[in-house]
């Protein structure tokens, strides 16, 4: 008896705690018992009205977080949809590789007793378990190449991805590569502009090399005008050994609106514009000239200052 008393004294605290927990649990259970009314959320009967009065019905499946460990529940409306196929008994069954997304296989099962499949020689043959009802297997048996033919550019280098997935490389383009082909550069072209004479009057310059005025008194200077596009480089030289700045920037060479001044013209002088076209362009070079002449002198021979 004395021993029982000692044991009881040592465990009574734990027993009391356990009894309290059980009582609490029973109390909570009693409070929670009884059939509650179903909870009707804002979503259940919700349909929003469109501007034309039609009823739009939102869903909400992705609101649920990804499924917790051990949950084998249904997908939350995403991922890859379930697919279906007709089986050998003409029944529509779930099949991850099946051709149908509808659980009735679009009513295609059972419409034909004969079924077809592609064999290892890529021929459509009768096969009781085949996926096709059409004797041509919906044209699915032909060997489709592993890659599609694709010309493309790698910078200036044209390449082609062949149907066997090999790559063919072609020589680099000089000017531009587009869709796997070299593109010819544009031909050199003269660009009209408004030229300004020495007296600030204007004229319509053609872009071709022009010397204006092209008739001067001996020892006078004149102006040379040009504007040419789509060129690599140009030179402008005179038959008097003068070299003018061609004014090249990018693919354009331009005298400027005011032209380039010549040195003193002593005698008839030819000025020549020579340009190299862009790589691969036709013609590869262009050249044109204009001439400046000396005004004839009209004086009486023997008179002072008349050189005649």
């Amino acid at each position: 008896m004395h021993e029982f008393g000692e044991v009881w004294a040592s465990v009574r605290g734990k027993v009391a705690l356990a009894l309290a927990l059980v009582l609490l649990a029973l109390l909570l259970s009693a409070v929670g018992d009884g059939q509650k009314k179903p909870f009707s959320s804002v979503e259940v009967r919700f349909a929003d009205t469109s501007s034309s009065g039609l009823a739009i019905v939102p869903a909400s499946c992705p609101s649920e977080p990804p499924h917790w460990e051990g949950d084998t529940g249904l997908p939350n409306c995403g991922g890859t949809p379930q697919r279906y196929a007709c089986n050998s008994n003409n029944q529509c069954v779930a099949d991850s590789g099946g051709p149908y997304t509808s659980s009735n296989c679009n009513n295609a099962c059972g419409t034909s007793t004969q079924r077809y499949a592609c064999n290892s020689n890529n021929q459509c043959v009768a096969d009781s378990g085949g996926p096709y009802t059409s004797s041509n297997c919906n044209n699915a048996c032909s060997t489709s190449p592993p890659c599609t033919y694709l010309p493309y550019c790698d910078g200036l280098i044209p390449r082609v991805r062949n149907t066997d997935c090999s790559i063919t490389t072609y020589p680099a383009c000089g000017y531009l590569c587009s869709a796997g082909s070299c593109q010819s550069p544009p031909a050199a072209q003269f660009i009209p502009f408004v030229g300004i004479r020495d007296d600030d009057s204007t004229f319509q310059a053609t872009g071709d090399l022009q010397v204006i005025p092209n008739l001067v008194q001996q020892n006078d200077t004149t102006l040379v005008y040009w504007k040419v596009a789509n060129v690599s480089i140009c030179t402008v030289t005179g038959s008097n050994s003068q070299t003018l700045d061609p004014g090249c920037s990018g693919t354009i060479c331009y005298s400027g609106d005011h032209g380039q001044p010549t040195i003193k013209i002593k005698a008839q002088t030819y000025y020549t514009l020579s340009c190299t076209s862009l790589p691969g362009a036709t013609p590869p070079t262009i050249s044109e000239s204009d001439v400046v002449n000396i005004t004839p002198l009209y004086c009486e021979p023997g008179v002072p200052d008349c050189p005649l």
Partner: protein
Amino acid sequence: MEERVMMLSVPSSARAFQYGQRHFSSRNETLYDIETAEYFFREADKLDPMHPQVLHELARLAFLRGDFGVALSRINAQIQTHGDALPNSYYVRGLILGYMGRYEEAARDYEAYLESDPHNWAAVNDYAWVLLKAGRAEEALAAIEPEFAYWPDNPWLLNSAAIAAYELGEHEKAQEYIERATEHVQTLTRREWLVVYPGNDPRIAGDGIAALKKSILNNMHTITSARDDSAVQ
């Protein structure tokens, strides 16, 4: 009862959250109880305010009760605290903002969610909903139509596509879509509906299915009448 005893004897945020989810799934016929779910989610939040999903779940609860302001503040807190860890939070915020009539903001959240789950038909459908409400019917139709490659028989998507086409004046297309929606909503099962509305009481599924069918049938009537009227004229 056992769950509460367990929580008293071995308190744990993870355990509380697990219990909360047990009571907050439309697919759990016997245990669904939104109040018990909320109790455990609050416990989980108390025990671990940095729990990665509990604010998300508390936001869903407030939303389902129609407390949109509370729901929005909770989902904002979820996103601020955990960033992009749970893309579904953007979806929930889109849903809340849509119900609040803040359609442009909702559209941005749906777009954010769709980046992580581009073929989720429900997200596409709800994105189309807020686009339609924002007067962007053309974009709504453009969002839905590619998804028919994956979900050709989905009555929600077909219904929304019909509305978008109708609003764009494409009455023949609207008619085709609404006829297909009408056909496929007839075979919608209770189980399928419960997947689509996962936070809802499974006992209410019948009401939800009836409401969806009624909406689609009313739309069918309106679209067909409009087409017939235009044919007469």
